[in-house]
Every structure is written in C-alpha cells, then in structure tokens.
C-alpha cells in the first residue's frame, strides 16, 4: 500500500469523522463527561538518529478526555482525547540532556455493552483517528540535534468502566487501552540531515507507513473517580508506550505518569 493512499484514506476518515462530530454535538448529544488531568512521571527516550543511548528523566503530562453517549443510540459513545507532554531527560552518564514534547489528539466512536455479569460494569470497544506532533532535542549534537515527530493514526481501543458504591458514594473505576493499527509518520533516512530535507528539498521516502509490525505502541490508563461534595476527583495512572522502527532508525518514548484532575458531567436536554 503506497504512502499516498494511506494518507488519502486517513484524510478522508478524519474529514468524515469531523463532520460527524459536528452533527453529534449539535443534534444528538445526550450527556457527556469531561475530565482534565495533570500528571507527573518518568519518561525514557531512544532515538538512534540522535544517539544510541537511552535518555531518562521526569515528564509532565496533560490529558483531557471527553466521553459522550449519543441520544439516538445509547450504546454508541463518542470519545476525544487530547494529550500533551513535556520531558527533560539525561543519559546514564549525565553528560547530555534531551528535551522532548508532544501533543496528540484522537477522536472516535465505540460500542458500549452494559449488560454484563457484574452489575455496574460496562465494556466499550472503540475506533479512533488522530495525530501527533512532537519533537526531541539533544543539547549537544551538531548537525543532527533534533528529531521531529509527526504522525497520523487509526487506533483500536477497549475500555472497561465499573461503578460501585461505598457508604452511599458512587465511585467509578476505569481502564482503557489504545492500540494504533495503521498510520503514517515522518522519518528522515538513516543518515539524512534535516538540512538536506528542508533546505535542499530532498524528499526521500520520509513518510513511512506505520502498523503494529514496525510501530507497536500502546497507551493504557487506569483511573478512579472519587466524588467529593459536588465535585469529582480523578486519580489515574497513564502508561504510554510509543515505538517506531523505520529507515533503520529506532525510536521509543516510554512514559508512566501518575495523574490527578477533576471530572465534570454535563447533561444536555432539548
């Protein structure tokens, strides 16, 4: 499958999905849950274009999630996820540092099953489309000081939600896992400089097709919602494992963060 076809297919999907979002938001949204979380954790980076060494250090993460069920079919849910992170890592010898940052956005629909063996449990299978922009900067390299990250992807996701009561308070446990299945990502050639790509305009297969065979990645989040008076506190653990191997370059960005934030439930009626 050529890269152009993948990009075209992803573009059409994104376009169609955006139209549907507008439609869903204006006419069929019934209730929605918005959560905003901030996290702190550790990240480890590997990018053999910059260095063969793995860099590790602290990471700050922002995660905003919206989950809506649709009026026309209560078993269909719509989800958006916006994630931003920034890390400052160092090599094992602590002689070099890397700054990393990225923003990613995913949205999609899922089928929810509530008729489960355990009361309060629901399962949702989802399909999402999204993209990611980011960078990784190594503070002591010369003509290969940074790597740009740009990717589009289609993702399969599963989530399990479980509501239960303790002393008349309803708590909610949630686990979700996201597995990108198909996409495209930017990648320089093995020894190609950014000067060659952008100053000289020498494009050479710098968009690669991504799939679990060369970019097996996984995002998992576990969270618990605790009602406190009229608000709801959310505590969570986010594990984000991104990988890519293309053009003989290896990349991984692993991060694990403890998250804390709040949840707002909004009901819409007409």
């Amino acid at each position, binding site marked *: 499958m050529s890269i152009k076809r993948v990009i075209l297919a992803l573009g059409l999907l994104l376009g169609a999905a955006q139209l549907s979002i507008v439609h869903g938001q204006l006419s069929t949204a019934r209730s929605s849950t918005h959560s905003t979380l901030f996290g702190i954790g550790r990240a480890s980076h*590997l990018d*053999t274009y910059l*260095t*063969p*060494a*793995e860099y590790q250090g602290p990471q700050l993460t922002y995660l905003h999630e919206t989950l809506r069920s649709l009026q026309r079919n209560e078993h269909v849910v719509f989800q958006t996820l916006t994630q931003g992170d920034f890390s400052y890592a160092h*090599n*094992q*010898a*602590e*002689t*070099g540092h890397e700054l990393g940052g990225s923003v990613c956005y995913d949205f999609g629909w899922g089928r929810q*099953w509530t*008729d*489960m*063996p355990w009361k309060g449990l629901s*399962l949702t299978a989802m399909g999402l489309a999204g993209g990611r922009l980011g960078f990784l900067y*190594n503070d*002591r*390299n*010369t*003509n*290969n*000081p940074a790597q740009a990250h740009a990717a589009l992807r289609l993702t399969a996701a*599963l989530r*399990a939600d479980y509501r239960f009561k303790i002393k008349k308070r309803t708590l909610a446990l949630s686990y979700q*896992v996201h*597995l990108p299945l198909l996409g495209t990502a930017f990648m320089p*050639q*093995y*020894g*190609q*400089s950014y*000067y*060659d790509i952008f*100053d*000289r305009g*020498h494009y*050479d297969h710098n968009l690669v097709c991504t799939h*679990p065979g060369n970019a*097996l990645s*996984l995002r998992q989040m576990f969270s618990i919602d605790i009602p406190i008076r009229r608000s709801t506190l959310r505590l969570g653990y986010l594990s984000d*494992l991104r*990988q*890519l*191997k293309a*053009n*003989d370059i*290896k*990349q*991984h960005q692993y991060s694990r963060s403890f998250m804390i934030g709040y949840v707002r439930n909004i009901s819409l009626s007409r």
Partner: protein
Amino acid sequence: MKHQISHTLKLCLMALATLLPLACVNEDPFDNTPEGNFEALWKIIDEHYCFLDYKQKAIGLHWEEVYGRYKKRISPTMTNAQLQEVLTDMLSELRDGHVNLYTSADVSRYWSWFEDYPRNWTQQLRDHYLGTDYKIAAGIKYRILDDNVGLLVYESFGSAVGEGNLDDVMHYLRSCQGLIIDVRGNTGGTLTYAERLSQRLTNERLLVGYSQYKTGKGHNDFSAPRAEYLEPSEGVRWQKGVVVLQNRECYSACNIFIRNAHACERVTTLGDCSGGGSGMPFSSELPNGWSVRFSASPSLDKDMQHIEFGIEPDIPCQLDSADVSRGRDTLIEEARKLLKELHAH
C-alpha cells in the same frame, strides 16, 4: 453474549501482553567499561561513518582490521586518559578532521590535514595588506588595494554574512579591476554562508557537485547522488575576474565554497590544495557519556569525485620566505598580477 465478550476481551489482552515484550524497539546497550566503550565507538563508526568504502580504496583503510589491532590495546583496568588515547589513535586511522571525541578533559582530533603542510599565510602579512582602515561587513573584511584590486577576506564561515552585507561589499568594490577572495585559514562553518558568497560569482545556474547520505548500516548503503546547483544571486553579482586564495586549512564549508567557486567561469583558484572535509558531521555518544563526531554524508564534485582529501588549485603557489621577510604575500602578489593580466585582455 456475555461469554463471547469476556472471551474476546481475554484473547485481546493476552495478545497484547504477548506482543509487546516481543516487539520492544530497543538498542542493545554496551557496558560502561573500557571494552564496552571501545565496542560502542567502533560500531558507531562502522554503521554511520560515510567514507569507509572510499577510504578503503583511497588509503587502504580496513575498518575490521582496525578493530583487531586496537582491541588488543584495551584492558579492563585502563584509566579514562589511557582509553581516550587508544580511541583517539583508532579514530585517527580515518584521517578525517570532522572526527572528534569529546571528553571533559580533552577534544581528540586529527589535524594532520593542515599541520603536516606549509600554512601559506600569516596573520601579520594579512594585517599588513588590510591595513587599519579596512571595512567590516559581518564576517567579511575588505578593502581596495593600491593597484585598484579588491581584497575580500573571509576568515571563518562560522561568522554570518547576509545578502545585504554582500550587496554592500560588491557595490563598494565595483570599480576594482579584479577581486581577490582570501579564504586561507578558513576551516569552515555554516554551509549557507559559503553558498551565499559563491552565488555572487556566477550569472548562470551551475552544476557544482552531488550529495549523498547513508540509507543503512552497510558501508555501501548510500542514496543515489543528487545534483547540487549553484543558483546566481538575485543581488549584486561580481562581473570581473576573481582569484580565490586557498591553503590546506580550507576545510569543510570552505572546501565546498572552493568547489563551487571552481565551477565559476571567471574564478581562478590559487595556492595549495584545500584541506578537504566533505562529509557533513553528525554526533553520537558512548556509554560513558563521551561525545563523538563523525562524517555522515558526503559531498562530491561535479565529476562525482570525492573531495574529502581536498581540491587542487588551478595555479599552485606557495608562500615564499624571501617575500615574507620583505612583507610581501606571495599569493596575493601573484593574484594581483593575474588579475591585471585578465583585466588587460
């Protein structure tokens, strides 16, 4: 239905748990020991350095043989200074000024490309010719000599020059009968400034060379050579004779400037062979945190020949000690003669 969902979910989670450890994208790390650092450095050069194949043919370099020879000098109890000495000796086999090993104590380097040759310029002579009332436009020093020849000195392409600077320089020197561009001692810097200056020397789009980069770990894994063209500047361009003065210190971006100038019709190069350094350097590092720089992508001349070991001048010329004692720069005087002859014709 419930059982189906539960079964499917179990299968999915099992598949994920199995797949992920198997497909981890990692690089096998080397130990932070003298042996591990030696192995890591040898591998970095083996997989990334762009002249291994060329230098095998040109100077008989066999990187595998180098491994065996230097591995014997590594011992687990050696100090950092001893390790750096061995690694520096190994890197010196590459004969490349773009290869360095940076530690907190020292910068390992190979400078024989100019240290083993006559320098062919002195700062005192340059100061004598420039005088005290020369002009400075960003990184360029310039003046008009007594015989109405322009002298333009660019000491380092690490110093910036803008299109406006070059317009002003060309405009100021416009009445001169010829121009001497003295880049002796210029060891390189930013390629953009080198190209910017050379764009002032042509009225036509010229093929000046080719560039490549590595596409894989093999010594011969290269992209197809891509033609590099010198586009004429849209600003003020020099329309008379030019002599470029070069010496063994002309390296890297300056070597590319000489390559480009060499392709221009009105330019004559004079002096010694340039130093070379045609590989754009990349960086990497060792497990102990030492940084290494190496040539990663080669530039070729318009005949697709390597210019890693320098570019011969059109007119070979050496600085004469008798001239030096009289306060005369042999190369500048030869260039003045040449420009007068060109102007007379």
